[in-house]
């Protein structure tokens, strides 16, 4: 009983944190690209994964998404100049 309630408590804390991180004004929308999308993107831009900007797998948002090294994350930023701009980062170890 004691162990279970403890576990529930820690889960609740994680959930609150998750909501806070994802809903914060400074955090834009992150999504993991599917393998096909990633391949298409690299072809379209004519680059390799190594040339993309990076994000660590231990990054709070990447952690929430469950991103693994090698995944590409699409970031939809709110931009004061363009309204909305799209950026990509490749997940690296760390």
């Amino acid at each position, binding site marked *: 009983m004691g162990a279970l309630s403890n576990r529930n408590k820690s889960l609740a804390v994680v959930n609150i944190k998750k909501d806070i991180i994802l809903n914060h004004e*400074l955090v834009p929308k992150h999504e993991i690209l599917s393998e096909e999308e990633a391949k298409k993107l690299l072809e379209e831009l004519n680059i390799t994964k190594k040339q993309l*900007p990076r994000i660590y797998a231990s990054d709070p948002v990447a952690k929430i998404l469950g991103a693994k090294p090698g995944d590409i994350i699409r970031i939809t930023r709110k931009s004061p100049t363009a309204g909305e701009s799209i950026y990509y*980062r490749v997940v690296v170890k760390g």
Partner: protein
Amino acid sequence: MTKAKKKTKSADVNEGGNTIQIRLPKRYEEEISKLPKKEQEKWRKRYLEMLYDVGEAIGMVAAHSISEPATQTTLRAYHAEGRVQLVTTKGLPRLIEIFDARKVPSTPSMEIYLDEEHNNKEAAKKIAAEIKETTLEQIMKEDSIDLMEMKVELVVDEEKLKEIDMELEEVAKIIKKNLRNAEVRVEGGNKIILESKKEEVSIRDLQQMRVKARGVQIKGIKGITQVIVEKVGDDWVIRTLGTNLKKVLTMNGVDPTRTRSNHIFEVMKLLGIEAARNLIVEETLRTLREQGVDTDERHVMLVADIMTFSGVVKPIGRYGVAGEKASVLARANFEETIKHLTNAAASGEVDDLKSIFANVIVGNLPPIGTGMFKLGIKEE
């Protein structure tokens, strides 16, 4: 360096007989769609004309656009001292701090917004009092060591105790938690007595206990030394000196979506690299605007993107972006020329002359602008 494309609706534009497809940013497209049809084409073309050409050295333009006005702000930076408000670092010193990616800013500060229910003066003041760190020393009248009975006497100021809305018993409890080898008890209306649990007590032990007790945090969040409640527009905002975003964001009454700190590394650890990037843009622009500099946002955005390229915030300069360039000659050109050249020679590094600096040094045409292209012959 790859810049991600600004993707949105595409537009066909006729240029020199060839139809080329370009994508306009969302906001621009929205503005254009309000115009009459005839005008729309013209403005799409205008957008194309305003774009930087391929090969343009935009990094250099950004560097000039930020640093030239920044040098002008130096003279104005120190005139805010002595006002009744939080004195945070401003002007050139703050800019240097941001671009050097200091691990801790010289004046860490938070801007705390409140949720709808607590968005009024009374609630804001109450939350501010809860946040501010109070140590025992701040609510104490005097402390003394009684050598006859080998104990420490702490006399608490009752008025100050009322101010922070606490009972003497509660204070004693907190001290007990923090000082493990001390017997704590309350005596009279305003005295707290500390006695050591050790059998043989030296004066030194008592002295240590006294110093430790002074620093015990009675209330608030650690590290937050000053709070000020202000009205900004329709909102009541609490400004603080000192940061602890992690604790504040989970506090009751705080709006966790808007509350922020100016501590870039704290935000990076808590909210991720993209949040840190946005904060760099925001802080830089705010610093520049305060000084009356109207540098374009795009320059600052480029710098922020480069600083966060590797997944952590890296400084612009010797130990960051400039010191980690792939080209030996580009690094040597920046700072510590001899160190880079000798190290490169010792480890047999190769410079493939792809960087601008390297090509300038050897007298080649640097790969910018028209220099980016080579003539190729198609073999039939």
